[in-house]
């Protein structure tokens, strides 16, 4: 399939021989490119990399990566990845999912993988639409959305992927966007470096069925006012001239303030990736606020796979390595002559 490569890998080494078959202009191309660019820097041998996906446009991702890849079934990639990572902690297991795959049919597996803190990296390509099935609304689509399946507008209040991940007490929660190439690379790197489950929402444009879904946030012309770049230890500042900031009212509700008229940085919220309430408030800033990108929360906790492997080791130490003969002969036995 592919040759064993020695020496430093390059972006090309991670490109598979398969023709990429997303629609021209799809945001998925950019994400693929960032992944292929960032991997050589991580020093992970190609054979130790596994991409596992469900079903959807996003889920075609593994075919295009020259690594191990498994394009599985709709919504279940986190479960498959869990079994793999637990029994093979030496592998780097990435899950690629969509807003439908990951939050609709697969919502439960996502939550459970995150709460278990299995050491897998979950990338959720959020285009707020079902791409592969040609344009039905998804769990992240805005209320009232008119799509093929909702000609009179959708009725369900959207799920907020970051909030759901936080609700499951995920240990690494971040957001980036397809077109924010540098930021994206940085976040992918940090997800890789995180010990436990990493959850990354990637704002992605589906130019066929939901073009411009992230328009003000990702558009070069408008993004300064609509993006809030989170950095640990830094105050929350945004705006073309970095003139606006976010402050907390005494009732714990956030407000936008303009720096200058008696207001300085010291009054602003300072981002802290270990503070759960901070992450929560940032996750639901609301429509009049800029959209945060960056790491919302990251904490260290035992991973499920570490725990599972430690139990195997402890059992071996305590009981000795498995002895088949002894196991078969356990308990009361007798001999018939």
């Amino acid at each position, binding site marked *: *399939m*592919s*040759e*064993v490569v020695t020496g430093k890998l390059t972006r090309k080494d991670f490109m*598979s021989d*398969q023709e990429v078959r997303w629609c021209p202009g799809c945001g998925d191309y950019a994400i693929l490119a960032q992944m292929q660019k960032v991997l050589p820097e991580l020093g992970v*041998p*190609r*054979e130790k990399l*596994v991409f596992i996906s469900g*079903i959807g446009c996003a889920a075609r991702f*593994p*075919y295009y*990566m*020259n*690594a*191990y*890849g*498994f*394009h*599985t*079934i709709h919504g*279940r990639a*986190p*479960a*498959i*990845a*869990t*079994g*793999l*990572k*637990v*029994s*093979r902690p030496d*592998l780097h297991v990435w899950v690629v999912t969509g807003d439908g795959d990951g939050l609709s049919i697969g919502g*439960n*597996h996502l939550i*459970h993988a995150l709460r278990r803190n299995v050491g897998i990296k979950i990338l959720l390509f959020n285009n707020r639409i079902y791409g592969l099935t040609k344009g039905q609304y998804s769990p992240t689509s805005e209320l009232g959305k008119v799509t093929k399946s909702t000609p009179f507008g959708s009725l369900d209040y959207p799920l907020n992927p970051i909030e759901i991940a936080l609700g499951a007490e995920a240990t690494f929660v971040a957001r980036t966007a397809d077109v924010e190439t540098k930021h994206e690379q940085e976040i992918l790197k940090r997800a890789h470096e995180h010990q436990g489950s990493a959850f990354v929402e990637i704002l992605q444009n589906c130019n066929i069925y939901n073009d411009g879904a992230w328009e003000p946030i990702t558009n070069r012309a408008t993004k300064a006012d609509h993006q809030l770049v989170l950095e640990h230890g830094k105050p929350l500042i945004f705006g073309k001239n970095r003139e606006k900031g976010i402050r907390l009212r005494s009732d714990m509700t956030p407000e936008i303030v303009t720096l200058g008229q008696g207001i300085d940085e010291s009054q602003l919220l300072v981002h802290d990736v270990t503070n759960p309430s901070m992450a929560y408030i940032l996750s639901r800033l609301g429509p009049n606020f800029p959209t945060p990108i960056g790491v919302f929360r990251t904490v260290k906790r035992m991973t499920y796979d570490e725990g599972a492997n430690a139990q*195997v080791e*402890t*059992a*071996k130490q*305590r*009981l*000795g*390595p*498995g002895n*088949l*003969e002894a*196991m*078969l*002969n*356990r*308990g*009361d*036995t*007798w*001999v*018939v*002559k």
Partner: protein
Amino acid sequence: MTTEAGTPPRSKVPKRHEELEEVVVRFAGDSGDGMQLAGMQFTNETAVAGSDLATLPDFPAEIRAPPGTLFGVSGFQINFSSHDIFTPGDNPDVLVMMNPAALKVNLRDLKPGGIIIADTAEFTENNLRKAGYATNPLEDGSLVKYQVFPLDITNMTLRAVEGLNLNTKVASRCKNFCALGLTSWLFTRPIEPTVRWIENRFKKNPELVEANIRALKTGYNFGETAEMFAVQYEVKPARLIPGKYRNITGTAATALGFLAAAERTGLPLFLGSYPITPASDILHEVANYKNFNVYTFQAEDEIAAVGAALGAAYGGAIGITTTSGPGMLLKQEMINLAVMAELPLIIADIQRAGPSTGMPTKTEQADLLMALYGRSSDSSVVILAPATPGECFFIAFEAVRIATKYMVPVIFMSDTNLTNGAEPWKIPNVSELPKIEVQFRTDPQGFQPYLRDPETLSRPWVRAGTPGLEHRIGGLEKEDITGNVSYDPENHEKMVRLRAEKVARIAMDIPPTDVRGGPSGKLLVIGWGGTYGSIVEAVERLRGQGKSVSHVHLRHLNPLPSDLKQIIRRFEKVLVPELNMGQLLKIIRAEYLVDAKGINKIQGQPFKVGELMEKIQEVLEE
């Protein structure tokens, strides 16, 4: 501990001894009365004494139903004998009854003249009313047909443990051991194994060790000393095939079979499961063996459980999942992915009764067609079914062997009674176990993910992580050899046929079919799964009466053995007894175009031998 079955420990009493060939004892009481435990310990004593045996636990649906109710009765039946036996017995010779409800539920099965031992302390007005008795059956003369031994077992127990620091509630909980002790004496069973079990089980609580042993011995000694019992019975050791034996349940045998097979391959075992009655106990059992490189994963649901097992298989482990009917159908999409991905996966379906939630604690064998056909589109998997509790070991082992050799999902079909039942089991020699050789592909030279072994049609198993073999697989149709996604029409047909052919060829890798009885004749009875014992016994008895009837019991349901067609042709008629509406029957008819008929029972209960004999005889006489 190993005793020599030739000399079982025995008490020396001046009572009359009577030798019996075969006895069926049923213990029953409230679900809180510890009847399953008493039954299991009695089974163990009996096994150690060298009898052949078969058991049938019968759980109530409720965890702890209100005491004294009919629906709360928990029962355990054991059949033991000095000759080969195959079933837990149709009708008990002895009932050990802890309350009126137990008596009410079980009396109808007791043989005429049978023994009833009853704990009189529980035959209170309240309990009699709950059981629907207007008067006390122990006193109203309604049991004249039987030998009744009313005994205040509760009080005997309380007196036995006096002086220990136990409140009455805890103290009276020991009464199951008192009843067990008495029964053990009555049938000359050694109580030492039970003593050891108690010592081990309660080792953190010496008071409880003492209390339970005292209760056990009180029952035993009562039999020996009291005037009540004039006869002590004995069942001689059975003439089993020489070897070392232990008693084993289907659950334990299944778990050990999987563990042994994984151990032989040298690969880790990954068991992904979601609790469901009656499959959960296999998970519980396997979870104890982490030192065998075992991962057990209690997933969020059945889909995740099988998904994780498949993920582990992708990484080079023995991926197994265990479940029962309602969970089984949730796994079908993942099994279908394994069919496409051609990865080894083992799925154990412990069948239970009824569609939907049905009767979760009862047995049935009605998932066969679902296992065969319950996936979208044409997708063939291997299906195996053990016939007895002990055989679960070998079939579980075989499931792993086939899955890894052919890169295919294998469904292991057991049932409630098989998994909960027990029998004496000749412990296999590790060196005699079949070979399982797993060879991962590691050579990049000429590697293609779907290049097949010309004989087995198996594709290579590549552990993710192998340098130079990076490749992509998935659930979309794949191109022959390369495994690339393909929508080519001819390729699809080719791949569907290749996958089916791979499974079909496994027929060449299974032993010739064993026909019990004459190789040809009037009637062939074809069975599968847990009905084995009943069928064997029914058929043997009929053959003893000179009837021309033989028996084939299938362990391989897909593919079917290739010699089955010829065997069927040698008989005039074919009968297929099943605990369902006729599932194997459909397959046999479609496959061999023989006008086979079914004997079908759908009651959550096993076949009785008598029942089967009657129906078979009808057909013979037609």
